[in-house]
């Protein structure tokens, strides 16, 4: 179906995680982290989410490159062949 889900998924997590990490950086040591037992959860978790997002983008990119290298299978057909090299 045209759009690889890992692209929007990866992008969403990179953007959200990035925002949280930057916010965490600026508020590091602030009193707001008393709630989370002194852990700067925005920074820590923002980084974790960004890494996850980047991994998804990387996987989508690698798959697309592999698909581009492989000879196109039946390009005129609207129904994709069953053995497409996509997903898992």
């Amino acid at each position, binding site marked *: *179906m*045209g*759009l690889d*889900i890992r692209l*929007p*998924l990866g*992008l*969403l*997590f990179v*953007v*959200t995680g990035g*925002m*949280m990490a930057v*916010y*965490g950086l600026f*508020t590091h040591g602030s*009193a*707001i*982290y008393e*709630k*989370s*037992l002194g*852990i700067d*959860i*925005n920074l820590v*978790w*923002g980084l974790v*989410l960004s890494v*996850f997002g980047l991994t998804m983008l990387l996987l989508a990119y690698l798959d697309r490159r592999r698909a581009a290298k492989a000879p196109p299978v039946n390009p005129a057909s*609207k*129904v*994709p062949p*069953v053995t*497409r090299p*996509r*997903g*898992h």
Partner: protein
Amino acid sequence: MHTASALAVGLKTNLTAIDWLIMLVYFAFVLGVGFLLKRHMRTSTDFFLAGRALPAWVCGLAFISANLGAQEVIGMGASGAKYGIATSQFYWIGAIPAMVFVGLFMMPFYYGSKARSVPEYLKLRYDEKTRAWNAGSFAIMTVFSSGISMYAMAKLIQVLHIFDGVFIHFGLPLSWIFHFSIFLSAVIVLGYISLGGLTSAIYNEVLQFFLIVAGFMPLVWIGLKNVGGWHGIQRALGPGYTHSWRGMAHASTNPLGTEWYALVFGLGFVLSFGYWCTDFLVIQSAMAAESHLAARRVPLIASIPKMFFPFLVILPGLIAISVPTVTQHMMAQVQTTPALGVARGAATASMTSDASSVPVGRGLIPVKIDPITGRVLTNDKGKPLLDYDLATPNMLLHFFPTGMLGLGLTALLASFMSGMAGNVTAFNTVWTYDIYQSYIHKNGTDQHYLWMGRMATIGGVALSIGAAYFVTSFNNIMDALQLVFSFVNAPLLATFLLGMFWKRTTGHGAFWGLLSGTCAAALHTGLTLPADVSGVGIHGGWIAVLHVYPSTMAQTFWTAIWAFAVCFVMTVGLSLMTKPREEKDLVGLVYSLTPKPAEGHLLWYQRPASLAILVLAMVVVLNLVFL
């Protein structure tokens, strides 16, 4: 089951710009995915079945997300607080075996028969009337379920005061928040489904799956750290809360109030198989898979994250009652740092003014307050009732600082919406294929049905809004509806099992078996009463009280068992009396007449059966760990 209807007092919410930004980014992505997919929606198959072109892992995550609405997230947290880790039975006994079964044995018929929906399978296997009954009742149920989801979300937004600051800022009356929340969720769901159909719904369910994990993992991490880990919970709550099988020999010695055989047969077999194996809401995502093999893998892949979900959604409930008790007076005090100006107005004042008279809740769980009189609700013995539905939301508010809180709330809102979306896509498919194309307009062009699908999406969302207000205006209507749904669903499993595995079953047998199963469920509920409700009423005993069950859960399990048994016996009996269909018409629809899928070319670990064995072994280990 669990709803936000009785939510009365929540912790105060102080959202800042970063929280709003996170929510906005999510909603921009949700609609963006819809727009990107719009150009791929050329045929009705693209729209209703996602072109049957999605990889198994995508469908698998959607398969569990469709079920993981916020009612589930909040309800499981509530049950965790109420019953302890025994709640995980709803996952380990009440979901995994059924998911394995549907993947191994039933998916070949759903996917292989080329049916486009579950009711359509019934038409192919049995006859028109069985399909009509199933399609009609299913369509009504999806509309009400999505309406209930909408209502619960609007209620939660109100109780957590999420939009209060914004409304005060723009000088709007706070009483509009409920209507605004309903309208907003309707517009967003309508937007992305009418643009991208089932693909859009499935993609958004995948986003939501990861958001829930991302939003709840830190909650469990920080929560566990706060209470001293699993051992801290064991110390605080005792063994009754931290063992899933203890005391299951008798109904009176375990928190669920039911014996092990009612649990295994009622929940683990009838209810769970009935839901996971026959409900088009979840099956639709497996039917969108790219191949026969992928479709069989979908529920198996889904069952792996599913078995670990108790740690994400039930554990917060246990943590919520393990932390030192916060009084409601303090709960309001905890959050006094001003963020959105004068956001906390009347509600805080009314909560704190009589704080001295408010009884203490347990942990983070407040007592239940009557929304009209403002009094604390008590049981027959005068003990205050606890508002368990607030366990998970209060955990978010208690442990998350601004920023992370935005992500947690986004996850919660996302799960409400994808719960709604799953219902809407199931509705538009069943409406268009099983009702409109079958009985109203038979020979339309494909483009016409694609158009109808978009119209049905608008209609489904409009009806959901109607259902949400219907639920709002009638007290207890939600309980009544869910009871009726359970009567209709309870016998379904017998019909599908007999249809798929006994070629002698006939359409007449199936139809009348289903009806008598539904009647049996209603009759059983009308003749019995659970001990934990206050007298004869909607929960049972409205005909006569012949038997009293120790808990509502026990009554539910036994209702399901009776409905299944009656449907099974009636279907078999009537089938033997009526003329069977010719065997050549049943190829691809019945197990014994369908060639087994060729798996010879697959390596052992690629076969669905190997995956199934792995999944079952993992569940056994989990049960042993928490025995």
